[in-house]
């Protein structure tokens, strides 16, 4: 039984090899800087950075936007199993997910009206 999974394994390994080789080559073949100059450790701030970046708080609106993205992005993950099993589930699956999408639409209209989307 395991045999027919072999091509998938080989394909997975090859897919894994590409990022691994990128990482390895850029690490192994890179030229080490000759002298650790102080300026290299500084953050790049268009050429006028004085010291390491001091701790700065981010406003909450970034966090809000991130949360909204997660809510609406994970929704797509749930669509994958539906797509794979669409024939098996037939109309029942379609209706089921219609309700799922509908609920998310209500959420979308709510946050749109609340103004969470515009900055």
């Amino acid at each position, binding site marked *: 039984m395991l045999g027919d999974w072999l091509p998938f394994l080989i394909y997975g390994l090859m897919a894994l090899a590409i990022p691994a080789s990128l990482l390895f080559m850029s690490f192994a073949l890179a030229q*080490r*800087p*000759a*002298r650790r100059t102080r*300026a*290299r450790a*500084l953050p*790049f701030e268009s*050429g006028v950075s004085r010291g390491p970046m001091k701790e700065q708080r981010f406003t909450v609106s970034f966090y809000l936007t991130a949360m909204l993205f997660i809510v609406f992005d994970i929704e797509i993950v749930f669509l994958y199993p539906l797509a794979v099993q669409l024939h098996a589930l037939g109309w029942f699956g379609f209706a089921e997910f219609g309700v799922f999408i509908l609920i998310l639409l209500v959420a979308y209209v709510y946050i749109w009206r609340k103004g969470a989307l515009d900055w």
Partner: protein
Amino acid sequence: MAARLRDYGLQSERLLWPTKGPSRFEEEMGVDELERALGLTTLEKAVRWAQTKSMWPDTFGLACCAIEMMSIVSARYDIARFGMEAFRSSPRQADLLIVSGRVAHKMAAPLRQIYDQMVEPKWVIAMGACASSGGMFNNYTILQGVDRIVPVDIYVPFCPPRPEALMEGILRIHEAHLAGIPPAYERRSVAT
């Protein structure tokens, strides 16, 4: 007879001057016959070849030469043929610093800091007369030549240099690197 860059498939020198003999870089870096015949190459040469084929310049536009530097990206001169059309804005991803324009004393410190923050191996082109030698401004505010603060690989004359002149400078850097000539900061002490 020492191998010629043409055998490496490098036509740059020949584009401009087909009948020219082996360039000075080749005489210095002779390659023995066997290795060339078998097409073998050391890992280091392969890495150098990869580095020259995607040497990304840093957008360091100062003055009039910056306008001509912009036009080498345009369709007519198209530096993309040498894999260089991605003008990186941060020195962390840039290999080549084209100082295009006159450097005031107020700009010297940021220039030096950006040069330090660039990744190795890095090259510097002093584009135009003002970057190479202060040009026609010999006064209190202009740095008389960028090589006072950063080691420079190639000086491109004219004011402003034609895009072809700048590309000639870039090709010279590619050729020098392929022939094994180390960048300027290794040959010369890093200018204090």
